[in-house]
């Protein structure tokens, strides 16, 4: 197995935000001769694509144009994702150049933006949801092995972005203690007494004790040691 691909796959799964994935993807696809990419879900006909976009590595102007004008519903490349499970070259996405003028307009405009060739990986999710990872660049030198590797890379990137998306919406309300309580608990963990913590933080000793008791209540713990242990275990404080 290609060692670079293995480390890219590992790195993708370590990322905790989409900015990290953007950097890794730019680097990784460059090795295969691609410059830009987009990762997105494909909405039903007539539905705005913007909430479905997972990560854009496109030129801003083109992204703006493509998404605001509903091009996803005209684009033969996007359309072809619904009829195949295997990756394909953009040039192999079928459309009638004579009769299908909207499709032709999208393809021609893309060319004006320097995006005349590319490689598209359809992503089929459970329940019939459809996604896409589309790479911009010349495909003529791409062999079967590289195509398979890019296919895998696309699946990993799409999967990790989907995971981060669900996490982002679920994590926010889970913060269990305040930042002040966290700060006090850190000093407790460092072995400081309440009076020492009061001296360090400038709070009164009473307030320090109050913070500890509040954290204890929030975490449902029995004493100060237990509170610190739970706070560390749930990564509410870092030492």
């Amino acid at each position, binding site marked *: *197995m*290609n060692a670079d691909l*293995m480390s890219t*796959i*590992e790195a993708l*799964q370590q990322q905790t935000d989409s900015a990290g994935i953007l950097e890794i993807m730019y680097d990784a696809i460059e090795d295969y001769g691609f410059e830009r990419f987009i990762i997105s879900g494909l909405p039903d006909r007539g539905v705005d694509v913007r909430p479905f976009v997972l990560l854009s590595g496109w030129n801003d102007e083109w992204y703006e144009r493509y998404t605001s004008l509903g091009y996803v519903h005209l684009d033969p490349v996007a359309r072809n994702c619904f009829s195949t*499970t*295997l990756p394909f070259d953009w040039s192999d996405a079928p459309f009638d150049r004579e009769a299908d003028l909207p499709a032709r307009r999208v393809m021609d405009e893309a060319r004006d933006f320097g995006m005349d060739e590319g490689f598209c990986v359809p*992503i*089929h*999710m*459970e*329940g*019939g*949801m459809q996604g896409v990872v589309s790479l911009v660049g010349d495909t003529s030198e791409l062999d079967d*092995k590289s195509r*398979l*590797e890019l*296919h*895998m890379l696309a*699946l*990993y990137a*799409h*999967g*990790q972005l*989907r*995971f981060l998306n*669900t*996490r982002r919406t*679920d994590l926010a309300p889970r913060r269990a203690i305040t930042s002040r309580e966290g700060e006090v608990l850190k000093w407790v963990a460092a072995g400081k007494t309440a009076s020492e913590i009061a001296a360090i933080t400038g709070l009164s000793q009473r307030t320090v004790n109050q913070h500890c008791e509040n954290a204890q209540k929030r975490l449902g713990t029995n004493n100060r040691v237990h509170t610190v242990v739970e706070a560390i*275990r*749930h*990564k509410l404080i870092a030492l």
Partner: protein
Amino acid sequence: MRVHIVREPADRYSIDLLERNYRLRHKIFVDMQGWEAIRRPDERDIDAFDTADSTHLLLLDDGELVGGSRFTPLDKPNLLQTVFSDLVQGEFPASPSLGADWTRFYVRSDRREGRRRAPESAALFCAMMEYALFEGYSFITFVSTIYMLEHGVSVGWHITPLGAPAMIDGKPTIAAWIEVSEQALDNVRRVTRQPAPMLALRGLTRRSPQPPAIIRH
């Protein structure tokens, strides 16, 4: 929905369930997915790895069998290291005694329709991670089309290929391993919104003799 664990020695109910599992598997893998190599005249999908060593996780809804999966310990004869050994070029992350091979994952096709993340496969994903933690496994291997990589990673699993992907019967196929951890269980439960345990582990003894994997948070 609940997930029933079947392994030897099985009681009468489990034996009946296992029989239904073999018939349903034949319908799904042979008749629908076209695995002609395992077709049998009695229309039961039973292979060399449906032995006393394997454990079946069977998903029931209102008494009806709707999905399943099979685990075979990696220190016993298994599908990965025999039929699919060509796909394995890398090393396991730990001793084979700490891993199991996950095979024959299915959800009945009428349960996969409609635009939704099927709760059936979510239930099985949760159950398999619960089961692996219970057994003290630290990794689960599988052979699948590469699409599984996207599904697994999207529920917060860490998946590492065991070799390069290859085209098998026109489908891109890979061998890989999934890391078993409390984090992996938390993630799949949160993403699939199935917070409650899927397995009834009470009364079940662990198969493997070594202590359970260290629980990480």
